[in-house]
């Protein structure tokens, strides 16, 4: 297909609905859930759940079909619109409220890992629940107190008990988004990363599916945060937590890193190829909220953005507005490109990190600038701008900090390995 920037009408329609939800439901409860940190935004959850069930059902069906197709006719590349559709939805919802958007009941990152490396049997067993019944959540637990950016340092262990043929998990995970909703407030699941053999580093790490209510899994803490307060951020302790043998994602067989380059790990790391564009889209949504509000507020005071004008005719505030507008566009286009590549079945690791770096940076600078431009209004809790600035910052931190994603870009463009560029 030739170069094209047209959003397909069906995506526009869907986005339109997300925008309505954002404006009518999310915005009206935004401040309430910012102030009532650990309450759940059921107004939003109940409205969005029917749509999510449909999306989950379609994703599951497609993923199972892909499993089948791989065996029959390999490499049939068909252009889908899944990821482009998702980033439009996420952008629109995050414009409404990023914290509430994060409470969306869905298989989320946990589901993505299962989709990426699960067997057809695992997909059915774990993901069907998201297509029916009451709202449910999926979560991904990687981060530990001593292992954030450096995921290879995780200490949580998985040991096979040959007697019962079960995995036994021990360790503590922190900062798990929707950990409590997935682990004990719904019939959801958590994908937990643990090591089978610490001496193997990344090659010894595997994701395991732990279903809600599994004995030995304790949700022991919920964080209090600067922003996205509506979002559940949990600490989870695993104490001899036993799960069935078939809950391991990817091959349980261990290979020396030099034999076979970090295979199981890499498989599931692919989930970042989709989740980074999603985070970037969420960042763009917050940035657009702040930008539009500031632009409209200033316009009411007679300060407008010119269609085009020589620089010497612009005021400092106008230049700030233009800078924000083009940064926002740049971040969005990088995000769109990373999602479109994924839809086209092409590799997007580099482009996803580029989008994440740019969007994380831009949402931070735009929201901070908006607070500045609006003066006391910007800083006031009567408006939402100060909240958007607080919500914005997380986008430069999770799913790989700005630095970690820059590192990924740098390694790719230089053709370097981890050991060459640390």
């Amino acid at each position, binding site marked *: *297909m*030739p*170069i*094209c*920037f*047209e*959003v*397909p009408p069906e995506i526009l329609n869907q986005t339109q609905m997300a925008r309505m939800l954002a404006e009518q439901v999310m915005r009206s409860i935004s401040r309430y859930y910012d102030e009532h940190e650990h309450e759940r935004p059921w107004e939003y959850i109940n409205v969005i759940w029917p749509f999510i069930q449909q999306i989950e059902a379609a994703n599951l069906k497609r993923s199972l079909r892909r499993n089948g197709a791989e065996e029959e006719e390999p490499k049939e590349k068909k*252009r889908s*619109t899944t990821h*482009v559709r998702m980033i439009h939805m996420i952008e629109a919802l995050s414009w409404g409220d990023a914290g509430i958007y994060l409470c969306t009941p869905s298989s989320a990152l946990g589901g993505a890992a299962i989709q990426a490396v699960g067997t057809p049997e695992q997909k059915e067993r774990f993901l069907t629940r998201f297509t029916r019944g009451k709202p449910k959540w999926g979560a991904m637990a990687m981060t530990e107190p001593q292992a954030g950016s450096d995921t290879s340092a995780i200490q949580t262990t998985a040991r096979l008990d040959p007697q019962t043929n079960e995995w036994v998990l021990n360790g503590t995970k922190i900062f798990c988004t929707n950990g409590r909703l997935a682990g004990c407030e719904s019939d959801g699941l958590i994908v937990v990363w643990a090591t089978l053999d610490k001496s193997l580093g990344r090659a010894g790490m595997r994701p395991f599916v732990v279903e809600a209510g599994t004995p030995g899994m304790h949700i022991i803490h919920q964080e209090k945060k600067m922003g996205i307060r509506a979002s559940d951020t949990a600490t989870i302790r695993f104490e001899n937590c036993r799960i069935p043998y078939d809950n391991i994602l990817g091959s349980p067989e261990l290979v020396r890193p030099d034999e076979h380059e970090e295979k199981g790990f890499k498989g599931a790391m692919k989930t970042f190829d989709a989740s980074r564009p999603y985070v970037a889209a969420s960042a763009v949504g917050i940035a657009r909220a702040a930008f539009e509000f500031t632009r409209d507020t200033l316009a009411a005071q007679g300060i407008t953005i010119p*269609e*085009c*004008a*020589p*620089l*010497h*005719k612009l005021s400092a505030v106008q230049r700030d507005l*233009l800078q924000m*507008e*083009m940064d926002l*566009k*740049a*971040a969005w*286009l*990088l995000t*769109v*490109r990373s999602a*479109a*590549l994924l839809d086209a079945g092409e590799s997007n690791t580099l*482009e996803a990190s*580029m989008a994440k*770096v*740019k969007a994380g940076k831009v949402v931070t600078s735009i929201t901070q600038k908006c607070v500045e431009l609006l003066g006391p209004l910007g800083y006031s809790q009567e408006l939402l701008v100060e909240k958007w600035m607080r919500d914005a910052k997380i986008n430069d931190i999770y799913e790989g900090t700005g*630095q970690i994603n*820059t*590192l990924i*870009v*740098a*390694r790719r*463009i*230089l053709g*370097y390995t981890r050991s*060459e*560029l*640390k």
Partner: protein
Amino acid sequence: MYSFDLTDEQKMLTDAVNRYATRQLRAVYRDAEESGALPDDVIQTGWELGLLPALIPEAFGGFGEHSVLNGALIAEELGYGDVAAALHLLSPNLVAIPILLCGTKQQKQTYLPQFCTETFPKATAAFLEASITFDPYDLNTSARLVRNEYVLWGQKTMVINADEAETLLVYAREGQSGNTQAFLVPAKDPRVHINRRDRWMGFHALRTFTVELEGVTIPAENKLGGKAGIDLKQILTCSRIAVAGLGVGLAKAAFEYARDYAKERVAFGEPIAHRQAIAFMLAEMAIEIDATRLLVWEAAWKFDQGKPAVHDAYLAALYAADMALKVTDGAVQVLGGHGYIRDHPVELWLRNGRGLVTLVGSVIV
């Protein structure tokens, strides 16, 4: 649906221009910069690529149609080769494209075939004025209608190849309305004075001149677009996109050079690219180049689709100007002291990057 793939035709086009840029322009640009002129044969080869006739419809002697997107793709490849040569090669476009966009049927028939000849057309535009408050919508150069003739007064700068030109497209404020209009002026008119060659920080290979119009009198029908005149916004939108494309190409050249150097250059026992301080700068460049290209493509695509593109092109040009300067500056930094020496191209690219921002950037913006 979103797509970022070039068509096969566009690939052939960009491949051809890229080959010319890397083999021919890169072979001569440093000598041309030092000597102050580009070799005629290199320009002739560039002209023979047929880039401009490819934008002109058959009815007027060309063999294609106007596409701002293709223009942007070409600009990137030429900018990758050498910005001075690119500006030289594209200077006839500054006349042909406005005629294509805004000319009367008669003007198109008269002038456009002159841009579809075997040899480099002797036509260029006179737009910029040497004033810090230069504003395309409020020019100092004036055109007054006296009976059936326009009389032009004023001074222009950065008129590319003015000394060899036969036709000048002069932008001027028209009489009472004060609107900017464009006028086709015979360059050899005795009241057109090609005063002196401009000297800039960069673009030494590009021959540009300060031109004075001392009451030049031309027939009324030489006003571009006839009574209706021109749509300046559309013209500027096209040139903004082209300049932004040049910026992307220039930045890409600087980025690649710095990247390759950083992998070779050893300090403290390791290639400097092993350090984040260097690697992150390069990553930043790569991200910004890609972001700018997408902004340029989107604006170009919108223009070609007939959608409003004025503001998009404005933003793309602003963004590209900033980016080009940042990236070329970064490239000199990556090379350290060696980057400051004229043996390497990066210092020239930084000077040209600054030039894009000032001469072209702020002008068209």
